[in-house]
């Protein structure tokens, strides 16, 4: 075969992006751990298995098309998030936790 450039790049352009969520053990929630390009959901799951669980990181994987995620606009940061900065009364730090409750 020649040394010509194989059209490997289109794969990255044509394969949609998937977000990968891994549950590290039973009872815990799935956590976002990265993203990858894959041609379909099964392909994405298989690649996620090879990329994100090779060091025993997980017992379950979810993949979600990145396009299906609606994200907040970074431009909205000020109105979305700044107002909560000075509302300390929203943190439940003014309660005495009874000893019987233990760690909370």
């Amino acid at each position, binding site marked *: 075969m020649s040394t010509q450039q194989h059209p490997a790049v289109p794969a990255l352009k044509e394969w949609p992006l998937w977000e990968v969520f891994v549950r590290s053990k039973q009872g815990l929630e799935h956590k976002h751990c990265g993203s990858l390009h894959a041609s379909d959901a099964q392909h994405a799951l298989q690649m996620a298995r090879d*990329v994100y669980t090779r060091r025993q990181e997980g017992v379950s994987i979810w993949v979600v098309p990145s396009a299906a995620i609606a994200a907040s606009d970074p431009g909205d940061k000020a109105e979305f998030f700044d107002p909560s900065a000075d509302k300390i009364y929203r943190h439940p730090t003014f309660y005495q936790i009874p000893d019987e409750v233990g760690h909370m």
Partner: protein
Amino acid sequence: MNTTEAQRSSVQAPADYLLHLADNALILGQRNAEWCGHGPIIEEDLSMANNALDLIGQARLLYQYAAQIVGGGATEDSLAYFRDVPDFRNYTLLELPHSPPLAATARGDRDYATTIVRNFLYSALMVLLWERLTASADRQLAAIAARSLKESHYHLRHSRDWLVRFGDGTDESHDRAQAALDHLLPYTDEFWADSAAEQAALTQGVGVSVAALRTDWNALVDDALKEATLNRPVAARGYITQGKQGVHSEHLGFVLSEMQSLARAHPGASW
């Protein structure tokens, strides 16, 4: 009965039989590791490295066990790194380069379809073989088989998935997969003729008659080829390779010289 007692009281597989299984895993693992850093996409690069490490892990367990039986100071390293071409008992299929037919000194670009087709043909056999070996009278071999079976199931899933994607993909991916299949399938004829080591293992109740797996293997292969829209080449009546008897292609020497060079240059070196 604890594990050690169970192992001691059970039958031991012939060393040649263990070496056949170990050499298969090591040589294919070494070949697949050639993709490390050169995979078509990063996920596949990792996937093939995982596959290679699984196989080398299987080889290590088998070599460690074989070394106990061989005795005389043999170790997993001496078996892997200080035996030469005629001592190796792997299928010829597994030592071929990742490229269409080539003379040994020629360099060709690695072809991922060749890699995938070979991994598919081999792992379709190994899921059947390991499964039977979990019932081996040699309890240690049965334990190695149980562990390897899970890995081989994944290797089969991975390679079958890509085989179907290539076959049922673009014109180019279809043609490459078909060419790889035409090239590699004749090498699988070697699977079905029992070697002396396989016969000895079978007689002792520790091995498996590979010939008896042929129908199941054909079903796995034909089912995948149909889904992949690939044609099974008509069986040619030609030379049947004998890698598992120690008669190898010209390619194995190149594999060994690269794989063994470090251990031979620095015998006994450790990290």
